[in-house]
C-alpha cells in the first residue's frame, strides 16, 4: 500500500500524509490529527471512509479537496500534486451549503459560471436538474427546499463540473432514515451513470456496506487507517442478505475491538 508506483493508473493517490493542528489546550504544542495516511482510489471506484467522530475524516477530505495543506506526504491526482482547490475534485458537505441568494437552477449552474463555461454548457444544466429530479424547482430559492432536495441540488452542483473525484463528507448524515435510503440509491445511480470516482465519509456502517467497493476504517488520536475491507457483494445489494449482515457484524466487532484496545 505504501509503495504506490508512479505508473499507477489511480484516480487519486494519498501517500504518507500527516496533518496536525495547534492544540487548543496547550498553545505552543500541536496535536497530530492524521498519521501516515496512505491509500489510492482506482478510477470509477466508490470507497467509504468510516470511523468515530473526531478521527480526522473531514480533515482528510479537506486536504484532498485542496482547502488545507498537508504537513507531510503527497496527494496526487494522476501525476499532478494537489496544491489548491480545483473543479476536478468536487466536495459535498453534510450541510448542503446551497447559496441562499441563488435559485436552485443558478446554484447548480454556479460551477459553470465560476469557470466561465456557462455559455458552452447551458444544455447540461437541464440534464443535471433532471438527473436529480429537480427540474420543476428550477426557480425556487433554497430555503423552500426539503433537506433531501437541497442535498440533491448540492450533488448536482458538484457533479456538473464532471469532477474526476467526488468527495462526499457525510452527505446524507442529516437526513431521516427513509430519505437517506432513497438518496443512497440515487447516489449509486449517479455513480453508475457517470462512473465518477467517489470517496464517501459516513458514520453509517450499513451505508458503507451498501454502497462501496471498499471500506476504510479509521481510528482516532491520531487518525490512522486501521483496516481496509473489500466489499465483494453483488449489486444491487440486499440490506438483509446473510453476507451483508456477516460483513456488518465483522465491522462492528472490529470497531469494538479497536475501541477497547
Amino acid at each position, binding site marked *: 500500500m505504501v509503495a504506490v508506483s508512479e505508473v499507477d493508473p489511480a484516480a487519486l493517490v494519498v501517500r504518507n500524509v500527516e496533518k496536525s493542528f495547534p492544540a487548543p489546550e496547550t498553545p505552543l504544542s500541536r496535536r497530530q490529527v492524521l498519521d501516515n495516511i496512505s491509500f489510492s482510489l482506482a478510477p470509477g471506484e466508490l470507497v467509504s471512509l468510516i470511523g468515530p467522530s473526531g478521527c480526522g475524516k473531514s480533515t482528510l477530505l*479537506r486536504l484532498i*479537496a*485542496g*482547502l488545507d495543506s498537508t504537513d507531510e506526504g503527497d496527494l496526487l491526482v494522476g501525476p499532478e500534486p494537489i496544491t*489548491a*482547490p*480545483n*473543479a476536478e*475534485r*468536487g*466536495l459535498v*458537505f453534510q*450541510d448542503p*451549503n446551497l*447559496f*441562499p*441568494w*441563488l435559485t436552485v437552477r443558478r446554484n447548480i449552474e*454556479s*460551477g459553470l*459560471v*465560476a*469557470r466561465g463555461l456557462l455559455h458552452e454548457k447551458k444544455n447540461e444544466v437541464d440534464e443535471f436538474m433532471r438527473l436529480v*429530479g429537480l427540474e*420543476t*424547482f428550477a426557480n*425556487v*430559492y*433554497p*430555503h*423552500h*427546499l*426539503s433537506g*433531501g*432536495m437541497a442535498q440533491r441540488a448540492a450533488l448536482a*452542483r*458538484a457533479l456538473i*463540473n464532471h469532477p474526476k473525484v467526488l468527495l462526499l463528507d457525510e452527505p446524507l448524515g442529516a437526513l431521516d432514515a427513509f430519505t437517506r435510503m432513497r438518496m443512497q440509491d440515487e447516489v449509486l445511480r449517479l455513480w453508475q451513470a457517470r462512473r465518477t470516482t467517489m470517496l464517501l465519509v459516513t458514520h453509517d456502517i450499513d451505508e458503507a456496506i451498501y454502497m462501496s467497493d471498499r471500506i476504510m476504517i479509521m481510528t482516532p488520536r491520531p487518525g490512522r487507517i486501521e483496516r481496509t475491507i473489500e466489499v465483494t457483494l453483488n449489486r444491487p445489494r440486499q440490506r438483509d442478505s446473510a453476507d451483508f449482515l456477516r460483513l456488518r457484524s465483522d465491522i462492528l466487532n472490529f470497531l469494538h475491538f479497536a475501541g477497547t484496545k
Partner: protein
Amino acid sequence: MEAQEDLVPTVVIEPPSVLRWRTMLAVPLAAAFALSLHIFIARNEPPLEAHSYRLLFVQVVGVSIVLALLRRFSPRLRKWMANMWPIFTAAIVTLAVWDVITVGLRILPLPYFPGPSAVLRSLINDRFLLLDSTWHSLALLVSGYTLGVIAGLISGVCIGWSPSIRYWGMPILKVVGPIPATAWIPLALVLSPSAVVSSAVLIALAVWFPVTMLTASGISNTRASYLDVARTLGAGPGYLIFRVAIPAAAPNIFIGLFMGLGASFLTLVVAESVGVKSGLGWYVSWAQGWAEYGKVFAALIIMAAFFSTIMTLLFKIRDRLLVWQKGVIKW
C-alpha cells in the same frame, strides 16, 4: 408528490378584503367634521384666507364618496381602502386637532405655530419655489449619496476581504468615521470654492462611514463554507468576491445603506441651511428669517414627503434584491 408539498407553506393566502361601512364612511365624515369645525373656528377670519383649506375637505368628501361608489367594481380598490382609510381618517382628525389648538384656542403662540389653513396657503402660494428647492435638494442628495455609497462599497469590500487592508484601514475608519459629517462644515466651506460641491462631499462622507462599516463586517463574516464550496467548484477570486462574499453580505450592506440614508438627510439639511443657497434646508432657514412660519411648516411637510419617498424607494430596492431572504427579514 413530496416535491409539491414543500412549496405549500410559501403560498400566502390573503384574507378576503372586507371593507366595512364604518371604515368607508369614516373618511367623508371626518372631513365634513373637520370642515365644519374649521368654519366655526375661523368665523372671524377673512374668508379668502382659508379658501383652499375648505376646498381640500370638500374634495376629500367628494373623492371618498366617488370611491365608495366605485368600490364594488374592483377588489383591489376595496382592499386598498380597507387598508388606508383608518390612516386617512386619523390624518384628517389630526388636522382638525391642530386647527383647534392653534387657530381655535390659541394655545400655541402665533405666528410660530400657524394653523393648517395658513400652512396650506403658503404651500400653494410658494409652490414654484418649493418645487425648485425640492429639485435642488434631490440633486444634491442623490449626487452625495451615490458618491458615498460607491466609496463605501469599495472601501468596505476591500477592508472586509483583505486582512492587510483591514490592518491599515480599520484605524482610519475608527478615528475618522464617528466624526459627524456636519462637524466638517467650516473646513469644507473654506476648502472648496463651491458650497454645492463641498456639501455633496460632506453628504458622501456621512454615507461612507456606515456603508463601509457594515459592508466590511458583512464581507468578513461570510460563512467560510460558502467560500469553500465555491473554491471546490473552481471559483477564482472574482467569483468569490462578487458572487459569494457580496451577496452573502447584502443584508448587512442594506443596513449600512439605510443608516447612510438617514445620515445623508441630516447632513443635507444642515449643509443647505448654512452654506448652500438653495434646497429645502435653505428654504426653511430663509422663511424663518422672514418670520414666515407658514412657509417653514410647508417646507417641513414637503421634506417629510420627500425623505419618506426616498426611504420607501430604498425599501423597495431592498425587497427586490433580497427576495431570496423572504420570510427571514423582519425590518
